[in-house]
């Protein structure tokens, strides 16, 4: 294995580079001082205490949860049905529809954000929290479709014929055989959509006002004033929450589901 050490060095550098921001924030959150600094001055949990007792932070966090819940609730039926239809039935213009559904990836987020802002403004929806969840769903839906499509593609088409052979009509076949068999993909996609909506920043920034700030927007607003270590504590909690969700995803359905999409 000539050159093995080179591969490992590059891999280690890349991993360190990926982890560095999170590690710096995590370290800074434990500081005993009054400003964000790395390495931290001393060690204390006072800024975590600060975070937990702040009503503004708690309110923003609850709003972010609501955004994530709305996004996931809409994405599950929409993404599942779209993925099953696209992967299962060969219909006219399937490719065009597939491209259309993946479009959110090609449009810059700031573009979709401004578009959604104008649209929601026209519809008098600005100022409520749930439209932010809807927006997060629209821009992240391709992830949901990919996750479910991976499950559908891995499905033996004979399963549905077997269901018909057992006496199940088309609706029963879909509800009792197809849907449960693609459930791992639905779970994976739903968890992913939840994390993405929880973390969603740029589009939320354009859609929220002072009463409806979500947690990432709140953090952003705060750093424009004074950068205090409680923001590092919030960020660390975010990173840990996301890591927990990824861990749950791996335990529930396995991360390799994302490697199987087409």
């Amino acid at each position, binding site marked *: 294995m000539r050159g093995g050490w080179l591969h490992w060095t590059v891999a280690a550098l890349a991993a360190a580079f990926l982890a560095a921001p999170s590690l710096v924030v995590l370290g800074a959150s434990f500081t005993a001082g009054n400003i964000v600094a790395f390495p931290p001055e001393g060690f204390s949990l006072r800024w975590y205490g600060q975070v937990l007792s702040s009503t503004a932070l708690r309110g923003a966090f609850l709003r972010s949860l609501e955004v994530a819940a709305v996004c996931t609730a809409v994405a599950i039926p929409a993404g599942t049905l779209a993925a099953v239809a696209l992967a299962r039935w060969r219909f006219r213009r399937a490719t065009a529809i597939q491209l259309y559904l993946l479009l959110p990836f090609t449009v810059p987020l700031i573009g979709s954000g401004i578009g959604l802002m104008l649209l929601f403004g026209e519809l008098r929806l600005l100022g409520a929290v749930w439209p932010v969840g809807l927006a997060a769903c629209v821009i992240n839906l391709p992830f949901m479709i990919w996750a479910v499509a991976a499950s559908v593609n891995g499905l033996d088409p004979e399963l549905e014929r077997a269901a*018909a052979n057992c006496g199940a*009509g088309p609706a029963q076949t879909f509800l009792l*055989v197809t849907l449960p068999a693609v459930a791992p993909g639905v779970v994976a996609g739903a968890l992913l959509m939840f994390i993405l909506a929880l973390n969603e920043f740029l589009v939320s920034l354009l859609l929220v006002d002072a009463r409806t700030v979500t947690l990432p927007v709140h953090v952003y607003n705060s750093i424009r004033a004074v950068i205090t270590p409680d923001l590092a504590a919030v960020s660390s909690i975010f990173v840990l929450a996301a890591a927990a969700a990824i861990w749950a995803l791996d335990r529930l359905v396995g991360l390799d589901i994302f490697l199987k999409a087409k």
Partner: protein
Amino acid sequence: MKPTSAAPSVAPAVEAEGVSRRYGDVAALAEASFRLEAGRFLTVLGPSGSGKSTLLRLIAGFEAPDAGRLRLYGRPVEAIPPHRRSVGMVFQRLALFPHMTAAENVAFPLRMRRWDARDIPARVARFLSLVRLDGLGARRPHELSGGQQQRVAIARALVFEPELLLLDEPLAALDAKLREEMQLEFRRIQRELGVTTINVTHDQREALVMSDRVIVMDQGRILQDADPETLWREPAHAFVAGFLGVGAFLDGVAAEGPALAIAGATLPGRAPAGRAAPAPGARARGSLRADRVRLAGAGATPAGCHAAAPALVEDAIFEGDRILYELRLPTMGGARLRAIDRDPGAHARHAPGAAVTAGWARDDMILFDAD
């Protein structure tokens, strides 16, 4: 109990008249006609692409015929959607529902057919017992071995007492020993329930072992429809002779007798049963099963033979209970022949390179038209 062959008053289980199915320009099934009486075990034998699976899919209702008439128990199939047909099927890849236990898989057809929920557990238990899976009902398919999964699929296909059982090469993926065991298992269950069965396979041994009747197909056409012994002894078509058993063909010109003329020699043979021998002067092929070819030393004629030719042993393949000789006939333009010695311990073996004489009886060479 389902109707069996002892109840001749019922319509045939399957009746096909000129049934065809095309995919684009390819005729997957060309004017297939046959009748299957209730209670029989029919095997459709053919290589891949012969149309045998298409036939099964038409009967199950996953596809519709382009032409011809197909009736199940006297009713035209067009009138019945797949989920209303009383047809159980064991799929090639089994297609067990992965999120259900073995018992739930077997209960599924009963639930879909709206059986009384109180009767279902006992019936599921009876059928799990029939396929010898007592106590394994709570396992999911991935927790069962290949043979056990096979048995779940059989129970699921039979539990609702279908009028017809379809087997789409479900044994193809099993290893040889398990496959033989399952062949006998299918036969036992089929006899026990008396269910009319159509089995599709490319395995000639499976066809001979399991069936009352065998239909041989090639390129979408039915070539022969007979019981296993007739099929073996009296192939009606050169393809059938080549597909079943181990043997070889000698290519030549048909002569009076009937006989086959090759390179100046005239070898006596016979016509296929119920058919005329190839017209003298036409190109013809003589089929010779390896187990009918006898060997003797060079210059001698093997006992009981009407024809003999000098042969060179090219290879002698030890197969345990027999030796397969690959032979070349130098006086017949280098034609190839095979011979099987079923009792290799009883006499000396011919080594590769040895000169021998290959002989056979008149009735052992069947003469076919060369297509």
